[in-house]
């Protein structure tokens, strides 16, 4: 390997993969990117000769916390990723070059390696008013995304912003913030979370590189490897839940003993993420372990499922603390009231009818006879 870091092909050989496996991997990478099979040669070539796959990381409407999360990765650590795994050719957060030079890095990569670079996208794309709500180098996010996605070998949507629109798409979505899979026609690997767990992010990238294929995705484009279970399914507080032992109020005795946070609004039962298993920041903790419920940050539309501190979301148009129960109880009471009123009415209006059988030799009232239409 003459001192250079191994190419993907070399790395796979070292792991005992055959040439056939390698070609298979290239086929999958090509299929994933939606490029024609005729482009396969290029992919094979790229992974055979390039020691590190070229990567473009775009930033749109976001808070950069996905990048921040990424650099918190503990296995592998991000220094190794930057030096040994990937060639991160464009990322506004870390790259040395700025302005024209930065744009040159971007253009070099997408033109020199068509069908061979991995596109990572952080942030959503505003589709309103010609994209005036997110412009980079004088171009709109949408223009850049379409161009960059065209020849990408694989597209990963980092975080809830790129996967489902996240906070800027919360009601009333002032900029028409749109997740990328709704804009480009390629398959997108969605890695939701606000932000996603660092080790999940590097895990998804490593899956592509090490196993040579995209991780298996669910119907929402999320890797099953990290998103097939609810936080609740593997939450260490689950025994408290099943036993019906709940925190009733912040910092009460139950909270101090780590009871289940369900009644404090925990969204674990409706949230698909790896938090309770992989945990955060090197497996140290996750929201629930540190006493706050899950707010559902990897679920599409979670911002509009508030208020966060009650089990059921507010009912649109019925005030902030109204739940389905508020509305239901009101309607139920109205129904009972209606029934009671009807009962009273009946006893007044139909007294005659009710009493009729009680009268000795009761005879049907005259009106009754008029009615028949059958």
């Amino acid at each position, binding site marked *: 390997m003459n001192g250079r870091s191994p190419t993907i092909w070399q790395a796979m050989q070292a792991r005992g993969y055959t040439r056939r496996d390698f070609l298979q991997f290239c086929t999958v990478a090509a299929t994933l990117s939606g490029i024609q099979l005729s482009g396969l040669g290029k992919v094979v070539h790229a992974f055979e000769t390039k020691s590190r796959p070229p990567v473009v990381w775009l930033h749109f409407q976001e808070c950069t916390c996905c990048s921040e999360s990424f650099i918190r990765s503990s296995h592998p650590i991000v220094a190794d990723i930057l030096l040994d795994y990937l060639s991160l050719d464009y990322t506004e957060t870390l790259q040395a070059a700025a302005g024209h030079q930065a744009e040159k890095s971007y253009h070099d990569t997408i033109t020199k390696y068509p069908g061979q670079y991995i596109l990572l996208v952080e942030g959503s794309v505003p589709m309103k008013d010609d994209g005036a709500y997110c412009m980079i180098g004088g171009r709109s996010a949408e223009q850049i995304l379409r161009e960059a996605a065209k020849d990408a070998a694989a597209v990963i949507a980092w975080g809830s912003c790129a996967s489902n629109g996240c906070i800027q798409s919360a009601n009333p979505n002032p900029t028409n913030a749109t997740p990328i899979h709704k804009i480009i026609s390629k398959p997108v690997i969605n890695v939701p979370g606000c932000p996603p767990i660092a080790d999940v992010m590097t895990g998804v990238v490593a899956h592509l590189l090490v196993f040579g294929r995209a991780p298996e995705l669910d119907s929402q484009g999320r890797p099953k490897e990290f998103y097939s279970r609810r936080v609740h399914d593997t939450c260490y507080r689950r025994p408290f839940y*099943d036993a*019906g*032992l709940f925190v009733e109020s912040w910092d009460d005795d139950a909270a101090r003993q780590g009871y289940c946070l369900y009644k404090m609004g925990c969204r674990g039962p409706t949230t698909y993420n790896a938090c309770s298993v992989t945990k955060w920041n090197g497996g140290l903790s996750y929201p629930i372990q540190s006493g706050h419920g899950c707010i559902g940050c990897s679920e599409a539309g979670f911002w509009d499922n508030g208020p966060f501190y009650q*089990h059921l*979301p507010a009912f649109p148009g019925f005030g902030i603390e109204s739940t389905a129960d508020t*509305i239901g109880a009101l309607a139920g009471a109205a129904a009972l009231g*209606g029934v009671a009123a009807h009962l009273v*009415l009946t006893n007044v209006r139909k007294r005659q009818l009710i009493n009729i059988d009680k009268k000795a030799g009761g005879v049907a009232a005259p*009106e009754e006879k008029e009615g028949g239409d059958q």
Partner: protein
Amino acid sequence: MAQKVQSMAGVRAQPRIHAYDRVYVWELPVRNYHWINVLCLMFLIPTGYIIGNPQAVFSANEPYQQYWFGIVRFTHFASGMVFFFNFLFRIYWGFVGNRFAKWNNYILMKKAQWRKLIEVFSVDILQLKLTRPMGRGHNPLAALSYFVFFLISMFQAATGLALYASMSSWWFPKLFTWIVPLMGGDMAVRQWHHMAMWGSIIFIVFHVYIVFYHDYVEGRGTTSGMISGWEFERKEDE
């Protein structure tokens, strides 16, 4: 099925002097459906409500000493399953059952049904008149309410199974997972599943009341009808 209609005119029916027809309306499968359904709801509603609003009980125990919330949930899922298959059966019976059980009773498509519905509404509900002629089987207003209830049942079963899919490795509930993204995530599904519970509660309030009303006011034997299958009709109404 007219042969099942027997005249009771000759039978000594004291102290009443009305002549009654006894009509076999509710076949056994329909009655079975009905009471299994009632039983399921007696479990589903309280357990569902508790799932949404667990009360603080036995809160001094340790988790390994109890499992009550788990049991509540299990009861909900188990009765939910029975509820669902019972409902499926009823749909089937809507195609093969007697004329009172047929689906076209519930989906009002004939002008006459709507005319009758308005009449029932003005006599039974608004009480603009004292009586109306009675027919056999469901009156259209009742039928409409059952139709709405069937829709609720369908919705509850679908949303319930969609939620259940993530807790089960059985293939069957997985058939319903597409509902989750369609409705905008598990949270939204839960929200609507919970909301629809109130829909069924309101149905039950009206339904049980009106069944007793018909007996109380008109003396039709409605209540026992769902047990025995027979309904009574005054002869002179024919």
